[in-house]
């Protein structure tokens, strides 16, 4: 009886010891593989953005076929969240606890990333290259050391428009249409900051409710302010409506349209009388822009898509979402190389916060992806671009979008 107990105790100790020994290895990393996780809308209203994850996935496959990263192949497991933060949380916990991924990469949407940030930081899991423009992901690293952003912030985008207006428009009178939530207000406050003392040149600003069905009335009110500059800080169908209303009202202001609403596919279907001459920012190569038709990076994107994608249409070959995903996947591979052979979670965050990447083929030429432990905004250079003849044409020098 006693001996039985002793045997049981020894067995239990061995089992406990074995279980206790396991966490020493880094989850999601083996001698020949790295597992990354992601959560993205593959269904529902925002499902077009799902191509960001597909683009990244295809790029990783391309890298794997060329030897992988220091002998390891990357597998990227991304799950559908239908743009619902609750599902993003469930996906993230599943990926971290059940699938034991190394880290989360390129999850899309401000709310979804806010929702998973606490869990990931509580569990020391890297939240890498967040696909959302809220400043908090790059700024609040003291509280959330495992999180790092990627794209330029909305606030900086607004500031850049403000600077450009002061430099290029004589006696500006500005009308602003903005979505009345954090996203639209970030752009607006950035614009005000960019205008500085000249913020009074904003003659009228109208916030529309993200739940409203139509913004044409708002545009009519803005036209009545006799403004010669019109800022479209809108989203999806609302920016479509804004362009339609401008054309119908026979208004001819200089239009600025924010990055998220400036997809070539969207700009091509609004009345061109209003769209022509519109200005936006750009940092990734737009495969629909004629300027890049023969560019190496865009060619690479198209060959990767043709090889690894399924059912690729000619529209896919001009879809900027894929390129955006490949751009951040390129940076991810870069960070993994930098983190070295002895890959750990702390190591990848250290690498991601010491980037100095000058050769990302999916971003505009001469953009440097640069980070430091206190500057966690990887892409902080943009150019302006003008819409003409159904295509975007970048102009001017690179502009800094580094939050101050």
């Amino acid at each position, binding site marked *: 009886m006693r001996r039985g107990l002793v045997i049981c105790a020894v067995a239990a100790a061995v089992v406990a010891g074995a279980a206790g020994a396991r966490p020493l290895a880094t989850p999601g990393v083996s001698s020949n593989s790295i597992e990354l996780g992601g959560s993205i809308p593959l*269904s529902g209203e925002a499902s077009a953005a799902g191509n960001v994850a597909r683009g990244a996935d295809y790029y990783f496959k391309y890298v794997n076929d060329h030897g992988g990263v220091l002998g390891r192949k990357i597998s990227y497991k991304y799950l559908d969240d*239908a743009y*619902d*933060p609750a599902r993003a949380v469930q996906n993230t916990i599943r990926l971290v606890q059940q699938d034991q991924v190394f880290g989360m990469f390129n999850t899309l949407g401000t*709310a979804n990333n806010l929702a998973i940030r*606490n869990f990931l930081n509580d569990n020391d899991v890297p939240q890498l290259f967040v696909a959302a423009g809220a400043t908090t992901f790059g700024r609040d690293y003291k509280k959330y050391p495992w999180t790092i952003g990627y794209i330029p912030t909305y606030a900086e985008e607004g500031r850049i428009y403000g600077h450009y207006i002061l430099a290029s428009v004589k006696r500006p009178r500005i009308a602003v249409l903005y979505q009345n939530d954090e996203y639209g207000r970030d752009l607006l406050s950035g614009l005000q900051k960019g205008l500085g003392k000249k913020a009074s040149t904003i003659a009228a600003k109208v916030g529309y409710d*993200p*739940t409203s069905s139509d913004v044409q009335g708002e545009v009519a009110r803005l036209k009545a302010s006799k403004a010669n500059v019109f800022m479209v800080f809108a989203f999806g169908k609302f920016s479509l409506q804004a362009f339609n209303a401008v054309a119908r009202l026979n208004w001819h202001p200089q239009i600025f349209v924010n990055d998220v609403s400036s997809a070539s596919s969207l700009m091509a279907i609004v009345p061109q009388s209003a769209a022509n001459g519109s200005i936006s920012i750009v940092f990734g190569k737009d495969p629909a822009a004629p300027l890049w038709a023969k560019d190496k990076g865009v060619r690479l994107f198209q060959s990767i898509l043709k090889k690894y994608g399924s059912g690729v249409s000619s529209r896919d070959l001009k879809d900027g979402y894929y390129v955006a995903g490949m751009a951040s996947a390129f940076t991810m591979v870069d960070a993994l190389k930098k983190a070295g052979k002895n890959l750990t979670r702390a190591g990848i965050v250290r690498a991601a916060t010491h980037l100095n990447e000058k050769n990302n083929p999916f971003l505009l030429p001469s953009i440097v992806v640069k980070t430091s432990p206190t500057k966690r905004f990887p892409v902080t250079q943009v150019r302006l671009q003008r819409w003409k003849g159904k295509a975007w044409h970048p102009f001017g020098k690179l502009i800094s979008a580094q939050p101050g």
Partner: protein
Amino acid sequence: MTPRLKLALEIAAFAAFAFVLSILPRLISDFHTREVAIAGMYYIALLGLGILTGYSGQISLGHGAFMAIGGYATAILSVDHGMSPTWTIPLAGLIAGASGVLVGIPALRLAGIYLAIVTFGIAISVPQLLKKFEGFTGGTTGKYGEGLTSRPPFGLDTSSNHWLYYVTAGISLVLLAVAWAIVRQKPGRALQAIRDSEVAAASSGVSLPLYKTFAFAISAFYAGVAGALYAIANAYVNPDTFQVALSVYLVVGLAVGGLGSLAGLVVGAGLVYFLQFHADTVAGWLDKLPILDLDPKQPGIPSVVFGAVLIVVMLLLPTGAGGLLRRLLRPLTTRLYTRS
């Protein structure tokens, strides 16, 4: 003798269910306890919907909205007012229940498909209203924060998944017992009488306004509790958390579980969870079949699989899991009932 036997059987089944729930975390992985807990939240919402639709015959396509009200009540009370999230759960249920009364009043004049349309309107409008009153609800960004994370009390050393599981399982058992007590006693008989014929029920002295409003209130209470737990599970709510589809999923879960069966709803809840979070896994399995080409990463494939599985389930089980259960148990129960 027979009603007593039935009662004894039901109590034994309840005890067995409670026993299984209590040992389950020892048998499955930490993450799977979380999955069961989330399915348990759908089960709680389905219990409420079961009372409303299964027993009183009123169709609601808006129960996701009551979950939203419960979820937001918990989020606002704990994030903005510093309450412990666990203790906000009953309050969230009461607030949702009160809004259920408000919906129940117009429901008195509507029946069948018309009521379904009105409640569907609620499912559509509540997420929009949540975006509108930003100062109160946090707008499109929603409510989140350290305050919404529920931690085990008294320094208990359990994983957060296990804690979530035990809270949800405990509440499920209590609410199952309450639902069972309601449906097998006078209120349940009154509700069934209303379902079968309002005229006959009224002429037998059943107060239609009282019972119909009661059914709405109690089912909204259940949905509110489920929503509160859901908010705690994710430590986050925003309007997209309670999309219109959620209300539809709940009706699907009810149909799969079976109208008028509290036990069958377990299957309904499991299916609602599984098809929402594992439709891609199912698509992956089907993709392995040589005749099908279902790459789960392609747009729309998981949704198609969701629909197809649903059609197959309803073809095989037209009366839901509850109906199947009754059919399977019939030889046993008829023998027991007719012996004395």
